[in-house]
């Protein structure tokens, strides 16, 4: 399906990352947005609240992030494509109903414009320290999809992609930007609507008496119905069978939870996206994501000038993690250099995926500002020694 021209602000714009996310969401056909103000993500909902009356859809400012996320899950079951937007502290509050979204297999998109933490931390300054929280923050076992754009233009595209992935796999999809990307203003080209491909949610064609709401298809994703369509489904956050009824035993738990993780793990190759550059003969690969992938560029250029063979692996989809690619590269390089604005999160995954084949060198940063490229350069130099 192509995007609706009435929802797409075609043209060249000068937008910040937050506003580009808003335009991406509207173009993707998002009709329900629940939000609660929190710096530095508020601009996303501010723009949406300005645009939505003439574009079509509902924006509601909820009483807190718990409510925003719960409303998003509810709205998704009516067939609306729902969005909520937040940052660190609000993200923590959303964890409860993100778990519900995973359990009810509810397509939804959450944008987290990361800031410095823990707690209130640095409301107006950047951070990348929610990368593990997005994967593991809610209790229990589950899988999600997380993307990490590094420019306003990418914010536009990857918000659309997040909607497509969420609808495709019936899972919460996260756009993990950060304060730098969110508040960085750049040229954003919004194409014609017919250049934007949207995934249409798969609804069942079975009659109500034959339909089982949680019976998976071959790709492990069940077909959905909407509330009000006469199927009279039951959806519960309790462990449930294919009918959606709660069953309290380990066999059903095993079947359900295994499928919830497998539907992402087994389809990971179709979901994963990264940018790879000059890794063929690289001695060291700079693995980064989000704003850090742009900060690393001068460091990489400087190292290359000195003759160091530096490859680049920039993650666009951070979760599921591209472990196959990292393993493959780990066999031929000396080290990964991983700059991230935290004290070591994705680097742990890199270490795990590299299985001791090479080093994984973290270039940490506590947040509040991006790395000095010099630090990344030093780490590259150190790594090839």
């Amino acid at each position, binding site marked *: 399906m192509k995007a609706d021209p009435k929802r797409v602000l075609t043209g060249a714009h000068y937008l910040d990352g937050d506003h580009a996310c808003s335009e991406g969401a509207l173009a993707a056909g998002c009709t329900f947005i629940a939000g609660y103000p929190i710096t530095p993500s508020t601009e996303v909902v501010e723009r949406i609240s300005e645009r939505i009356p003439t574009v*079509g859809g*509902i924006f509601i400012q909820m*009483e807190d992030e718990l409510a925003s996320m719960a409303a998003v899950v*509810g709205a*998704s*079951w009516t*067939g609306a494509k729902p969005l909520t937007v937040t940052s660190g502290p609000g993200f923590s509050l959303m964890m409860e109903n993100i778990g519900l979204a995973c359990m009810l297999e509810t397509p939804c998109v959450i944008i987290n414009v990361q800031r410095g933490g823990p707690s209130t931390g640095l409301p107006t300054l950047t951070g990348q320290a929610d990368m593990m929280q997005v994967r593991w923050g809610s209790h229990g076992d589950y899988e999600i999809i997380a993307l990490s754009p590094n420019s306003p233009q990418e914010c536009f595209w990857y918000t659309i992609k997040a909607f497509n992935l969420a609808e495709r796999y019936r899972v919460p999809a996260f756009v993990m930007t950060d304060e730098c990307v969110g508040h960085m203003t750049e040229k954003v080209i919004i194409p014609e609507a017919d250049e934007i491909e949207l995934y249409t949610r798969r609804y069942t064609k079975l009659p109500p008496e034959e339909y089982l709401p949680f019976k998976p298809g071959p790709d492990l994703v069940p077909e959905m119905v909407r509330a*009000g369509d006469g199927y009279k489904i*039951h959806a519960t956050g309790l462990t449930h069978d294919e009918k959606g*009824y709660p069953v309290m035993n380990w066999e059903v738990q095993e079947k359900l939870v295994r499928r919830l993780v497998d539907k992402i793990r087994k389809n990971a190759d179709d979901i994963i996206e990264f940018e790879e550059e000059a890794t063929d003969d690289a001695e060291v690969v700079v693995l980064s994501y989000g704003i850090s992938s742009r900060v690393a560029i001068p460091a990489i250029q400087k190292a290359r000038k000195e003759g160091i063979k530096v490859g680049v692996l920039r993650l666009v989809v951070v979760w599921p993690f591209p472990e196959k690619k990292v393993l493959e590269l780990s066999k031929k390089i000396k080290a990964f250099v991983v700059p991230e604005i935290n004290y070591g999160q994705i680097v742990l995954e890199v270490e795990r995926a590299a299985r001791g084949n090479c080093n994984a060198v973290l270039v940490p940063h506590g947040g509040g500002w991006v790395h000095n490229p010099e630090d990344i350069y030093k780490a590259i130099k150190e790594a090839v020694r």
Partner: protein
Amino acid sequence: MNETLTKELKLPEEKHPMENILRMDRIPHIWCSTCGIGIAVTSFAIALEKAKIPLDQVCVVSGIGCSGRVAGYVKLDSFHSTHGRAIPFATGLKLGNPKLKTIVFSGDGDLFGIGGNHFIHSARRNMDMLVLCINNFIYAMTGGQCAATTPLTANTSTSPYGNYEYPFNLPHLADSCGAVYVARWTALHVRRLANSITEALNKRGFSFIEIICPCSTIYARRNRLGSGLDIMKFYHDNSVIKHGANTKDLDIGYQSKIIVGKFVDRERPTFLDCLNDWNRKKFGDKFREYGGPDD
């Protein structure tokens, strides 16, 4: 109820008249003997029939707890959400598809303990939904802890020497936050409750009905109040019907008189009315009103 026991229960071929609205494949339910939640569900079913609302458009959302299980027993689009979040979940359903009739069926702990914030804000916005609150004065599912509704001096497992925290007056809370319909009944007032629910189902806006329910296994046992039947008899002797009573006067003390009745019935534009009217005024023809996923 485990599966083997369910299979052992040979059900006769005759059909209970409520079978079109209950998930009979899940009955018998998990509620204890003499629990009033089943009565509330029956009253709700009778009201649905009376109100003549197409069942396909009715959504029931529950939170967590004994009353949270209601969603699992009604043969409607039903959602068993997270603890305290039934109201925002229902808000999402209603706004995602304004044609739906959303009903929140949950308990006092869920709606007013952990979910109090959502309740007051939805009443303030006049979000179009009906909230049915089973009030048994205690957190029963977790074994009888002190709730926001536990009367003073009542014994619970976390107030073993008696409760010293003042409880909520739920109708007053709903009234002062702007609910358009506020009523309170006990599980004994089955017919009045059913009529009240019918009335509320036909109202637009945020309606609230408190249903005082016996919990013999936990609340009555801890407070030595006898069986469920004894509690029903207590309701019979001690509830006073006072329609239109000032909601300020509706506090419930330990084993005190319970004032029941319909207290508030007024008209206010709903959230969606306000949203659409305001935007029509501001944008004229440019306003694209959202009417649901099929629009």
